[in-house]
């Protein structure tokens, strides 16, 4: 079932056509990745879908509601995780949840949302005492307080250590399994490969490929692509995880 429809989306900054006719759709309960080099237009595309930036041309529909025409209605349907989540200091975690719930006009059980992301022990701590990974997890759960249908994440794992990254992947999968569509940008190909159900690769404001990661690899191989062969049974990250364990290190 299609929940997000993007048609011919355009955005111009001065001389630069930042987003140049992007079209794609996202299904209910899938993780959709947008990949591309810096300046490809990933973040701008996301921001237009999130009502944060005016749309120059084309349309975005979420649950059949036009984003440009009914931004206030859209805000109830989406959850947004910014690139670097920040919270006002001297705020307790439970208060952060209460604030965001209140912003949606809701009253929620803050502890429930904290334990969803494994932060129940930190409930009475101040946000400034959290590690980077913990802040990401808090940010994710604040974006879900109102039960959105679509969840946007902008480079969620940038700057996290391997354990925190893996933990975040697990959380994102749990969100998807609750039937929420996840739309995320990333620079990491390994992340896109293991996490995303489908990906779009953007370059210079255009989508150059869109499919399941496996299919994209298969298509490349069909074109007789040959990677320099050396078979590695493990890589450095495997060594790191083997030595330091999979458990989270943010006590």
């Amino acid at each position, binding site marked *: 079932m299609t929940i997000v429809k993007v048609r011919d989306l355009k955005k111009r900054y001065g001389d630069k056509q930042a987003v140049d006719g992007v079209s794609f759709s996202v299904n209910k309960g899938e993780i959709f990745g947008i990949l591309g080099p810096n300046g490809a237009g990933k973040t701008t595309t996301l921001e237009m879908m999130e009502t*944060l930036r005016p749309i120059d041309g084309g349309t975005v529909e979420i649950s059949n509601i036009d984003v440009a025409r009914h931004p*206030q209605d859209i805000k109830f349907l989406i959850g947004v995780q*910014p690139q670097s989540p*920040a919270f006002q200091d001297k*705020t307790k975690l439970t208060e952060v949840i209460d604030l965001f719930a209140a*912003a949606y*006009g809701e*009253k929620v059980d803050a502890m429930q949302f904290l334990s969803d992301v494994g932060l129940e022990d930190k409930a009475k701590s101040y946000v400034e005492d959290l590690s980077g990974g913990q802040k990401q997890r808090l940010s994710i759960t604040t974006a879900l307080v109102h039960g959105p249908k679509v969840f946007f994440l902008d480079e969620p794992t940038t700057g996290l250590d391997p354990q925190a990254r893996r933990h975040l992947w697990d959380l994102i999968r749990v969100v998807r399994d609750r039937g929420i569509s996840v739309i995320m940008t990333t620079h990491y190909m390994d992340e896109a490969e293991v996490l995303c159900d489908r990906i779009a690769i953007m370059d210079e404001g255009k989508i150059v490929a869109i499919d399941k990661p496996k299919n994209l690899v298969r298509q490349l191989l069909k074109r007789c692509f040959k990677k320099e062969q050396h078979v590695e049974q493990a890589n450095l990250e495997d060594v790191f995880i083997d030595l330091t364990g999979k458990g989270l290190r943010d006590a």
Partner: protein
Amino acid sequence: MRKGTQHPLFTVITFAKINTRRFFRDKTALFFSVGFPVIFLLVFGSLNSGNSDASFKVAIINSSNSVFAKQFVGNLDKASVLNINKDITTLDDAKDKMSRSELDAAVVLPSDFGAVQKGNTYPSGKAEVVYTQNNQQSATALGSILDSQFKSINAQFVKNVTPFSVTTKQINENSLSAFDYSFAGLLGFSIIGMGIFGPVNVFPELKKMGILRRLSTTPLKVWQYFLSTMVGQATIGIISLGVMFLVAFWVFHLKVVGNWFELIPFLLGSIIMILGIGLALGGWAKNERQVAPLANIVVFPMMFLSGTFFPRFLMPEWLQNVSYFLPLTPVIDGIRLIASEGKHYVDILPQLGLMGIWLVVIYVIAFRVFRWE
């Protein structure tokens, strides 16, 4: 369309509650909103209360050994209008101090002062008041003080009839000290500090961190955010002003003759009106660099021309006319009229009207220029 289950004001109250709690956890913010104004009050208050009673700083150069001279000096010492500097014993010393305005005048008693002259049965003498050009008024006043002292002394020795006389009588009902008057200005200064510099410092910081941008992805409306800030600031403001009132009562014996039920709502309205200026500036600015010069341009005229530190009646007339319309002027005038002069709302309609107009203008601008990032 699905909307929140709670009332729109639930959002406002939750934001106000949590942000006010945060404020009390932040010791720096607490110091600058409550501690700093009190320090300011103590400094300015003591400057003002010093000259509330008109006393003369004088030195007495007594060259006479007579008993009468000693008694006379003792009497002068008891006079409350004279502040006698006992360290000065020579005329040169006194001249030196007078040239630096540390002394208003010197009373010189010559060596024969108070001695009984030949052929007389009573002591006599001539005291001299020495003063500099700058202190003619003090010297004249001092001369008449001494003159009246001598008259009563003379009357003891030489009986004569005084058909006409004058007596002075002090009435002391609700008279205001200089401090009572300057307190309104200090409150105004504090309201400006909290209302303008608060949001001007906080908002650009929140924008830089992306916190307001994150909020803008939620259905939170600008009026909800503003109103929650208003409720929070009004709470903090009333606490801060309350502490200032307590200190003023204890330390400077502040007299409030007005009605508290009129004064408190007036203070709340003032805080909210001035806060609007901060919301407009901070809400508009993208960063601190952009807002700092503008905030100073807005704040400084009010700080100096609205009667915070210098009374407006000392200004030239054209400046009084201009400064009358600054947003802070009706606030300070209103506080003074209610608190110190016991006026009621019906008496200060011009001030209330001016504040009402500013309130509307300021908040229309604040809503127009607000940016989430």
